[in-house]
């Protein structure tokens, strides 16, 4: 199972209290995780990446294994620790604004 940690506002929107666990078929990439996340929680569509361009929203970042993966290709394989569920995939809101 893939583990995903959402920022608090998206946890509220998706009505989940803790981390989300997802089944991801095939290679585990950012795109595969987000596809699975949006399939399980349609309310999150458009809140993490654009509906049309599929680009990450500018004030969000993707982290895993203490690495900022935000600028990696969405189709690049994620670390084995994420694929095995040992480490979560983190979606983090920028610390900004009032």
């Amino acid at each position: 199972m893939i583990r995903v940690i959402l920022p608090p506002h998206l946890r509220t929107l998706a009505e989940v209290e803790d981390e989300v666990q997802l089944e991801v078929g095939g290679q585990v990439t950012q795109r595969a995780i987000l596809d699975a996340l949006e399939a399980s929680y349609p309310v999150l569509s458009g809140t993490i990446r654009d509906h049309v361009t599929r680009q990450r929203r500018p004030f969000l970042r993707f982290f895993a294994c203490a690495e900022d993966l935000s600028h990696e290709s969405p189709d690049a394989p994620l670390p084995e620790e994420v694929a095995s569920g040992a480490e979560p995939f983190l979606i983090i809101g920028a610390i900004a604004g009032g």
Partner: protein
Amino acid sequence: MSKVRVLVGTRKGAFILTSDGKREQWDISGPHFGGWEIYHIKGSPADPNRLYASQTSGWFGQVIQRSNDGGQTWEPVGNKFVYDGVPGTHQWYDGTPHPWEFKRVWHLEPSLSDPDSVYAGVEDAALFRSADGGQTWQEIPGLRGHGSGPRWQPGAGGMCLHTILLDPRDPDRIFIAISAAGAFRTDDGGQTWRPINRGLHSQYIPDPNAEVGHCVHRIAMHPSRPQVLFMQKHWDVLRSDDAGESWQEVSGNLPTDFGFVIDVHAHEPETIYVVPIKSDSEHFPPEGKLRVFRSRTGGNEWEALTKGLPQKDCYVNVLRDAMAVDSLESCGIYFGTTGGQVYASADAGDAWAPIVRDLPAVLSVEVQTLP
């Protein structure tokens, strides 16, 4: 006994204020969607318990919420706003072409007859409609496609379609307004549109007869006279007696004719309200006095309404969607401020009192009059 429900959108959530017809004691619920910007909440005239809310965030984008029980519970519905066809470009601040990009929904206008039908005015300016209770949205492309779209330019707050007025006598006629493109009208249910800005004069536009480019802040109409429109422009208060074909300035004796809100008394079509703001570079009331101005003559002759409003050291703003009226026998007027106050008058503006003082900055106020 009748009740009123005041729907307040703020920078950090939605609040719902309810009272009986006396409008003296208020119950306050919220924040709903705490931490999110709620640009607008509005109820369906055909089913007052059906509410729509625009929930937005710089981090997470757009969410549309829908309630079927007057705001006690909510469910997120569709948030996919995709421009029809190739979006094209409008003018950027520096005059260069800039691609149309969806940013947020500023205003939701439910149909007068069908609770599942609702319009959305968005930034970058376009008009969308849902026919399935907000689950899916389709652009009404005739507005951006009518020809002047490439010349539209954003105002300081963004290029937003902020006003949608549905003609109660003619379902094919809709008025909309965009900052800073101007006002537009369709007479065929949205297929074709034309600018209705003749008579508007804006100092920053070189061509005095420019058909687009005017920073219209708000338009209001009385439902019994949909051909009569009142406008608060960036500067100037105006009226039109011919459905926008021509406009005449009616600023009269206002202390300043800059402002954002304008609204019409529920039972007196010639009684209108504005909140003058000092200037476009000083977004607060003149002299630190928060005053609503009322004209009982459809403009030109204005009286200051001050009873119950702060008359010194007040430097809040009242944004364009933040005034509304109820339709009780003694018409109630409501407005919200960027300081988080929502003021109400149960006697058409003669006396005011705050319903609540310390909300986040208020973006919008709507009122429902309930049986």
